[in-house]
């Protein structure tokens, strides 16, 4: 029972962070800042929801449930490794595709204008 409550709490927290990611995906001004929302929000919220389910499946302490919880934790490890990697790949592709970043007026773009590096 108490494990059920803890797993519900984890899933609810994951849904809250999913809300943050989804609203950020709509409200942020340009592509790069949207990648912040997509890359970070999805990683943590998927981790929280899936580990909540792993806790729920683990509650009987039987053999097959243990294997099931291990599978869910394997999904967690997989997401933790691949989500930042695909974020890098997509943001690098967006930069090379020539999307202009919005830069604050008191800063300079050290990477250079993407369209000026036309080969």
């Amino acid at each position, binding site marked *: 029972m108490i494990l059920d409550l803890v797993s519900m709490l984890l899933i609810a927290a994951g849904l*809250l*962070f999913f*809300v*943050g*990611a989804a*609203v*950020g995906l709509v*409200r*942020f*001004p*340009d592509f*790069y*800042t949207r*990648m*912040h*929302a997509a*890359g*970070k*929000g999805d*990683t*943590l*919220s998927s*981790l929280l929801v899936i580990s909540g389910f792993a806790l729920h499946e683990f509650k009987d302490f039987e053999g*097959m449930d243990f*294997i099931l919880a*291990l*599978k869910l934790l*394997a999904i967690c490890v997989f997401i*933790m*490794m691949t989500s*930042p*990697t695909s*974020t*890098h790949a997509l*943001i*690098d592709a967006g*930069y090379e595709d020539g999307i202009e*970043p*919005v*830069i*604050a007026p*008191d*800063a300079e*773009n*050290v*990477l250079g204008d993407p369209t000026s590096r036309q080969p």
Partner: protein
Amino acid sequence: MMYRAVTFSLLLAIWLVFSGIYDAFHIGLGILSCLFVTWISSDLLFDDRSLGFRARLGQAWRLGGYLAWLGWQLVLSNLHLLKLTLKPGAMAEVEPRITLYRTALKSDFEKFLLANSITLTPGTITIKILGDDFYIHSISKFAADGLDGQMERRIAAIFAPAGSGSPSPSAD
């Protein structure tokens, strides 16, 4: 030889978790296919083979501690994101900028770990890695200033044994 045994046992553990059928026939199939994959791809997983088993075990232990710290940073980063998106008026704090960060880490695995950690900490994302230069997109000036050398020192402390004075041993 030791690295082949480690690769084989990792593969077999993954087989046992994902197969879910435990009779002699299926476990035998698993052992055969893991032996085959170990034979054809044993040089993929670890680059540097000079370290012993105990040193590798220590590295894995410290890597686990680092991942726990990284999970806490991920929670902080999501709270920051939630504050930016849902609090009214907080969108004015968004002043994106691109900064350059030069690292002293050498091996590819350390750079991969540093780039992923920068992406998961609050307000910063790695755009590009060219040699030793990391180009970082950060969401405000505060987030850009938070990127000091602390994370890099933590990563260097994982792969360098604390006692010996060797500056940067190359890792996986």
